[in-house]
């Protein structure tokens, strides 16, 4: 007799599989774990709750992440990259008006943003993935296991490309995103657990690099977004920058660096949240008094813009101001008093919710949702898509197919036809945004349907199904109904990703068997890379008479790169590092072989591994 296992819906989850909540922030990231609604923010090795979203590249080409990255940022020759979240999924032209973000970045041939320094070139996905990898290791150490699944938050106003890039960066870091949720929604979930009840709430979320507004309707067991608005190009960073510019002249006189200036501006802004006046010491007995009024004057135009977005979002939600029972404040920058002042003017006598640390509330919400997903219980989150999706019509006009603020998941079918006799192919340019012309919207990619049988113009019936899933990601399928030719694409952010990473990503999308297989290959790559690294390390130290100082250093760096890639890299990263070492040690190995004859370290084996990877 076969034993049957009886399971409650949702309880089939492997209990050993923990799911963490991650707030991947512009300035700092947090990782949290919830057990029975008790949320723990996990600490890094320096006992910090916040993991700085920063990486540093040393002169030698070593990469440090998080607190360590900031610790060495003022060392000579060290390049520190911050605020990567403001750049991920974007192109340089998206940063117009934010000139200070363009420092240190370049464009590669595909027009993608890359950082290239100290012989290391990294794109925005790779940098984000290094940070996510660090976050994962903090979770691994705290929870004493290999954490593989996470709920990751993104700004509500993030577009398709930005969302996909984050998902991709997480996969590269070995984290499967079980669900991607919007930051303001996560915050509302954290408050819904204890503080708020049935009603309509507005979340004002000013993060380091993004601004979101979400209006939510909550009831027993449900947190539902009814409208979202925002600006993915404005954040607390910009307020610091405004203050920094105001202090520029004094700083130039005192001879300090711009990064120090930004740091001081940030500290000044934070101090003015509690003090009415702050004295600044520029050295040489030069002291300047900076008042909160002056700060308010400076940032007023920007804060007013956010208030306008708040008001527009209320209109979009189809409600009036008086329907709103409370405003939830999220993001460190909401400590700036002017924000509360302005919001109080919009909503008279509104209750503010800010009792949960605005820096931590998003991570807490993510952790709560992670627990809900793994137990199949808890509050249900219902969200909307922030931006309209559409296609480009003849003449460059944008036709909206899924309107913004549609509840997700959702799908809409549209029918297209050919416009020329005998036309056998149809190309659809898929776009996202609210503007009237396609060129002003964000281009997501093109879908080409080939093999339409030749017919008179307007006869073919091409049905295109646009689906937005529960993560807010788009899948487009096209079908010619006369012939039933079907094509489906999941739009990939092709920019910034090399072919092997895309291949890895596609591998990840297939079934588990293949996943296990690729995990096995990764393990093998790692084992081999370790072997090569340790053998060569021994060899260059034993036979350093065969190497010049420069050669020695270069090989030493390449070995370090391998070690880094083993700790936190994809298979292609590791293989690439091994290949690079192979190149740089070719001569040395020959010399060494001549010397010892017996040791054949390199060459074929790397090739073998490559073959194995391909098979």
């Amino acid at each position, binding site marked *: 007799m076969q034993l049957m296992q009886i399971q409650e*819906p949702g309880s089939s989850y492997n209990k050993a599989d923990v799911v963490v909540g991650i707030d991947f922030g512009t300035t700092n990231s947090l990782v949290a774990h919830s057990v029975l609604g008790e949320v723990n923010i996990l600490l890094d090795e320096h006992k910090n709750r916040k993991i700085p979203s920063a990486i540093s590249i040393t002169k030698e080409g070593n990469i440090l992440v998080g607190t360590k990255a900031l610790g060495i940022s003022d060392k000579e020759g060290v390049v520190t990259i911050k605020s990567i979240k403001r750049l991920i999924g974007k192109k340089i032209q998206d940063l117009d008006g934010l000139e200070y973000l363009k420092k240190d970045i370049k464009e590669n041939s595909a027009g993608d943003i890359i950082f290239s320094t100290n012989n290391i070139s990294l794109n925005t996905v790779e940098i984000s993935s290094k940070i996510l990898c660090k976050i994962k290791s903090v979770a691994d150490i705290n929870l004493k296991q290999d954490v593989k699944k996470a709920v990751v938050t993104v700004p509500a106003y993030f577009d398709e490309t930005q969302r996909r890039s984050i998902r991709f960066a997480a996969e590269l870091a070995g984290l499967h995103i*079980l*669900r991607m949720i919007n930051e303001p929604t996560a915050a509302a979930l954290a408050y819904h657990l204890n503080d708020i009840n049935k009603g309509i709430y507005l979340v004002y979320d000013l993060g380091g690099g993004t601004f979101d507004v979400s209006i939510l309707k909550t*009831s027993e067991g449900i947190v*539902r977004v009814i409208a979202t608005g925002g600006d993915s190009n404005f954040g607390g960073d910009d307020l610091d920058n405004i203050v920094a510019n105001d202090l520029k002249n004094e700083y130039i006189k005192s001879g300090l660096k711009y990064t120090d200036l930004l740091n001081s501006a940030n500290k000044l802004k934070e101090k003015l949240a509690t003090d009415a006046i702050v004295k600044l010491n520029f050295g040489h007995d030069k002291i300047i008094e900076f008042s909160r009024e002056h700060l308010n004057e400076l940032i007023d135009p920007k804060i007013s813009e956010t208030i306008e977005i708040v008001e527009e979002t209320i209109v979009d939600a189809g409600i009036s101001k008086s329907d709103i029972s409370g405003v939830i404040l999220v993001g460190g920058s909401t400590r700036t008093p002017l924000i509360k002042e302005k919001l109080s003017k919009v909503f008279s006598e509104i209750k503010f919710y800010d009792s949960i640390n605005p820096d931590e509330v998003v991570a807490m919400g993510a952790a709560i949702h992670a627990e809900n997903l793994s137990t199949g219980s808890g509050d*249900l989150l219902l969200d909307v898509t922030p931006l309209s999706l559409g296609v480009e019509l003849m003449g460059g006009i944008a036709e909206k197919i899924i309107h913004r603020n*549609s509840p*997700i*998941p959702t799908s809409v079918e549209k029918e297209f036809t050919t416009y020329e006799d005998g036309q056998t192919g149809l190309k659809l340019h898929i776009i996202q945004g609210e503007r009237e012309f396609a060129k002003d919207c964000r281009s997501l990619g093109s879908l080409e349907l080939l093999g339409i049988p030749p017919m008179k113009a307007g006869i073919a019936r091409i049905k295109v199904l646009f689906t937005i899933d529960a993560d807010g990601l788009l899948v487009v399928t096209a079908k010619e109904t006369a012939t039933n030719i079907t094509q489906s694409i999941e739009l990939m952010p092709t920019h910034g990703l090399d072919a092997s990473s895309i291949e890895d990503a596609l591998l990840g999308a297939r079934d588990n068997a293949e996943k296990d297989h690729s995990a096995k290959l990764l393990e093998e790559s790692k084992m081999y890379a370790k072997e090569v690294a340790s053998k060569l390390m021994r060899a260059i130290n034993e036979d350093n008479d065969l190497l010049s100082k420069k050669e020695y250093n270069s090989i030493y760096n390449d070995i370090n790169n391998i070690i880094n890639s083993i700790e936190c890299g994809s298979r292609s990263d590791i293989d690439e590092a091994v290949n690079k070492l192979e190149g740089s040690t070719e001569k040395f190995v020959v010399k060494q072989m001549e010397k010892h004859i017996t040791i054949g370290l390199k060459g074929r084996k790397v090739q073998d591994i490559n073959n194995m990877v391909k098979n």
Partner: protein
Amino acid sequence: MNYFKIFEVEESFIVDLNKLEDLYLKKQSLFHPDKFIAKDEKCRLEALEKTIVLNKAYDVLKSDTNRAFHLLQLQGLEVDLEENVVDIPEILSEIFEEREGLEFASSIDQLKKIEEKAVAQLEENKKQFNDFYTNRLLDDAVITFKKMLYKKSFLSSIHQKTKNIGKLKCS
């Protein structure tokens, strides 16, 4: 697909929106993909599809015009939305007058008055639609439906203009 059946509510233009919302949320709690995240892919896809239909059904039933359109569809009528209401001669002059009135309105107060009138007319249209539909006077129902559509678009023009005037005042 009959969206009324999905929520098990009566096939009628009059719908209790609060009750509909409750039903929608109850069904979401049962079928949402988050509840099936640990299941196999087939289950997850099924949940996704069910939720998509739920969202669509709710979207249709909660809006007056969408609901009216769906009712006509269920009666086997193909209403061509591209074909404008201006094709109905008897209300053409009325539309003309209204549009002119909106164009010459220059104050928020004037716009408010126009809006109030339009809202009242829309309410009247809804009542008429319900009567025609209930008595299966479908030709009249279609014309009234088109009038409703026109009034909605007229209202959004009023809102747009109100917004623009508001902005001018601020700057």
